């Protein structure tokens, strides 16, 4: 399923060729549309020639319709498509600054490249200016770093914001664009050709009406078809993922989890899908608890997917079954570097041991039963909640005999395990401006 994993051929001739060819098509389209002429671009802001608006928004709605038509047909995996993360205020400020640069210089960076390549002298100077501006930015960004990283909202689409299905948002966007085109046509006639406000307001060109009908129809199909549900997405990836489950590739030994938790260069996130009662009795240090029924909730998915690059996420239940269910959901939603803790909390406690005055082993039936009897709730305040951690967390102490468990600091004995975690990077913004 598209998009293709080009990172695996990174650095090869084919890799650069693909991007060059896309660039060539891009450059040729810009040039043919008249974007190599600064006067044509600037005319947009005097309402005499609305080419910029028409080309840009036609491009956006055409691409958006094709993209979401592909995702609804299961041809394209939207989770692997790069969506520019939202940094709201730096984006708006940068946009205003660019608007000023646009009207003074007569280009934006992409169009100036095309102007320069067709030997327009103002385009060449603009490109030189852009390079200078980029250099100045690099030299000065350190002085306002907090602002540059402020108002981060992650991967945030209009449908997340409005709480509407993607297809509905697409139809609304297409209708908005068509209304803008209609306004642009009127503006061109009034400000460009000097027509008076007396002409017929009914659009007469049947090509335009036909094109508008076609794009509305395309967007409506997307809205009616809807985007694939999580279970549909799991069905699409079943072949690869079922094999991983069968080979137990995704089940990681507690020893490796503890090892990664103590590795300062890693961000480890543990998601605990057990009941609140079990979580209060004992949980792995720093674990986030969520009900299995809530794991597919948009707010939770956004939170998990918004984790920084290089985060490894472990799922845990008392056994393995619930964690595996959670795995299927999060994996379908496109979460990378996702694993299940082998044998769950029961195995964790077997490996690291717990103070006998806190809990003792018992026998219980069912794949998700807690195999320990707790005399008190310790939460994460037991050495086994964070094995091998040199940290001095306040621990629950008991009167009974001292634990033989491998706990914090020098008492920790590293268990042996076969490492399974392989870190995968998120799709990098290749080619994009990011």
């Amino acid at each position, binding site marked *: 399923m598209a998009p293709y994993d080009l990172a695996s051929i990174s650095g090869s001739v084919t890799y650069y060729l693909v991007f060059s060819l896309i660039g060539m098509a891009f450059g040729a389209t810009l040039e043919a549309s008249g974007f190599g002429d600064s006067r044509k671009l600037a005319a947009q802001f005097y309402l005499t020639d609305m080419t910029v608006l028409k080309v840009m928004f036609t491009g956006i709605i*055409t691409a958006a319709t094709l993209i979401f038509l592909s995702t609804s047909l299961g041809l394209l995996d939207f989770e692997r498509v790069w969506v520019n993360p939202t940094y709201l205020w730096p984006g708006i400020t940068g946009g205003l600054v660019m608007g000023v640069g646009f009207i003074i210089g007569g280009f934006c960076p992409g169009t100036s490249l095309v102007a320069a390549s067709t030997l327009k002298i103002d385009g060449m100077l603009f490109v030189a200016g852009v390079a200078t501006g980029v250099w100045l930015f690099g030299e000065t960004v350190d002085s306002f770093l907090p602002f540059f990283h402020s108002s981060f909202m992650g991967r945030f689409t209009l449908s997340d914001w409005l709480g509407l299905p993607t297809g509905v948002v697409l139809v609304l966007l297409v209708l908005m664009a068509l209304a803008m085109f209609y306004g642009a046509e009127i503006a061109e006639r009034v400000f460009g050709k000097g027509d008076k406000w007396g002409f017929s307001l009914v659009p007469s060109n049947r090509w335009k009406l036909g094109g508008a009908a076609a794009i509305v129809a395309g967007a409506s199909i997307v809205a009616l078809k809807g985007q694939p549900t999580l279970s549909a997405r799991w069905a699409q990836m079943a072949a690869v993922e079922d094999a991983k489950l069968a080979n137990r590739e995704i089940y990681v030994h507690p020893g490796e989890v503890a090892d990664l938790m103590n590795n300062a260069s890693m961000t480890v996130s543990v998601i605990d899908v057990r009941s609140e009662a079990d979580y209060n009795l004992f949980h792995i240090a720093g674990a986030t608890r969520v009900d299995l029924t809530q794991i597919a909730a948009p707010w939770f998915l956004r939170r998990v997917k918004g984790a920084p690059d290089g985060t490894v996420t472990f799922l845990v239940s008392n056994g393995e079954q619930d964690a595996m269910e959670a795995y299927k959901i999060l994996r379908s939603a496109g979460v990378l570097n996702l694993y299940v803790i082998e044998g769950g909390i029961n195995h964790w406690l077997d490996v690291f041991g717990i103070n006998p005055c806190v809990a003792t082993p018992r026998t219980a039936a069912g794949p998700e039963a807690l195999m320990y009897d707790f005399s008190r709730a310790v939460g994460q305040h037991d050495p086994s909640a964070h094995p091998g951690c040199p940290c001095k967390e306040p621990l629950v102490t008991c009167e009974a005999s001292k634990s033989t468990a491998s706990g914090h600091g020098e008492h920790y004995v590293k268990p042996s395990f076969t490492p399974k975690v392989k870190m995968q990077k998120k799709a990098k913004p290749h080619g994009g401006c990011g």
Partner: protein
Amino acid sequence: MSQAAANETPSPQAKAPPRAPKEPRPYINPYVGGVLLGIVLFLAFYITGNGLGASGAVAHVVAAVLATVAPSHTNHVAYFASLAGGYKSSIADASVAMLVGTMIGGALSGLVNRRLKLELRKGPHVTAAMRLAMAFVGGGIMGYGARLARGCTSGQALSGGAVLSVGSFAFMFAVFAGAYALAWFVRRLWT
């Protein structure tokens, strides 16, 4: 524009002889251009999972040049160090390949449509020196803003807009707002 095109089409033979052979061909209809641009953008997303862009590549080139001219300085400025610090090659990036492609594509289209010509495009009431100075200054402002916004009109507005990113739409309206707000004050440059 389409009205003009519609008037022209019935008599191409009659119109052809007076046109000088070297006269540039007209630009394509903006909606047709937009559909083509949309298809290119879609293919970029479909094949690579990423959109189009230009200013990111400029940052890579600037960092590469800086790393050659002043390697120790490059290693000490965080922004450039992340692009071209140490032994990192900043120029061997997909975005640079796309930048080269964009320029080749633009030049080819210019050649085919007889627009490949060394010339200066400016408003009717502005001197050449003024236009060149403003192009450079405007470019500088644009380059700075593009990095602040983490993308230019193509990488942020066009690519982000097509995948419905909230930040990209906010950015897009900010660009138009900034330009419209200033347009009246600098009208001598263009009209």
